[in-house]
């Protein structure tokens, strides 16, 4: 194979094709983007399917623009289309109180089991959050989410009580009446091996 060198011995990154930039070529861990979904027309649910059936760490970035009859509500997550009551969740909604120069608890939710899903976060209107998902086939899958807009911040933790499978699909949806508006975006990253 021919080798080419620049006179200054520097690598010109624009000459490297994207496919050649693999995790093995990097000397540090990184997040690989494995899905990017742009909502162009109103939908009630977004499914990320055909995720690799192996142990992995995922980061889900959600920029949801709410629309419909409910614009101030939570988004929910379900794994592998499991609609059984196999989820646990606790979410705290905190708001900044300028009189105390501190965040205070506004709401606490522990309601995932009967909804057959995990409440991702409770953020009014436009909802920006990121979630870290640990997927080990032999253990419960855990998810921790952090979101916020303005003076409201949400911290949510949950688990999917499945100890046999890997996560191969993620569904994100609101309660009945809440929709993703055009302009919403969902990106999924996987921690490199």
């Amino acid at each position: 194979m021919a080798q080419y060198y620049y006179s200054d011995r520097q690598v010109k990154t624009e000459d490297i094709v994207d496919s050649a930039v693999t995790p093995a070529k990097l000397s540090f861990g990184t997040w690989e983007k494995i899905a990017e979904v742009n909502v162009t027309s109103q939908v009630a649910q977004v499914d990320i399917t055909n995720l690799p059936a192996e142990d992995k760490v995922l980061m889900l970035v959600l920029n949801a623009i709410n629309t419909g009859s409910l614009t101030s509500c939570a988004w929910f997550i379900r794994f592998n289309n499991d609609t059984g009551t196999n989820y646990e969740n606790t979410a705290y909604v905190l708001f900044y109180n300028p009189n105390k120069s501190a965040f205070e608890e506004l709401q606490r939710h522990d309601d995932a089991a009967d909804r057959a899903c995990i409440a991702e976060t409770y953020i009014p209107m436009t909802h920006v959050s990121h979630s870290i998902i640990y997927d080990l086939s032999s253990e419960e899958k855990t998810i921790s989410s952090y979101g916020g807009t303005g003076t409201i911040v949400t911290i949510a933790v949950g688990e999917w009580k499945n100890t046999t499978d890997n996560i191969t699909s993620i569904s994100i949806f609101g309660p009945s009446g809440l929709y993703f508006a055009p302009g919403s975006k969902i990106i999924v990253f996987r921690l490199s091996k």
Partner: protein
Amino acid sequence: MVIEMEKVLVYDCAKHETRIEERDIKLPEFEEPEPPEFQKKLEKVIQDVEKIKEIVRKLHPEITL
């Protein structure tokens, strides 16, 4: 939970393709959350203050509260 026919945006990570499906999906129903603990305590304090005012009015009707 309710089952509704809705539009679903499906992204396939293996094919890197996006498609829209219209199918039945299971959605939670919206529930108004419980008021937080401090709000409940505040309501209790307000009720107690009203009771104290009533007692004071009976004992000292000359006092305007």
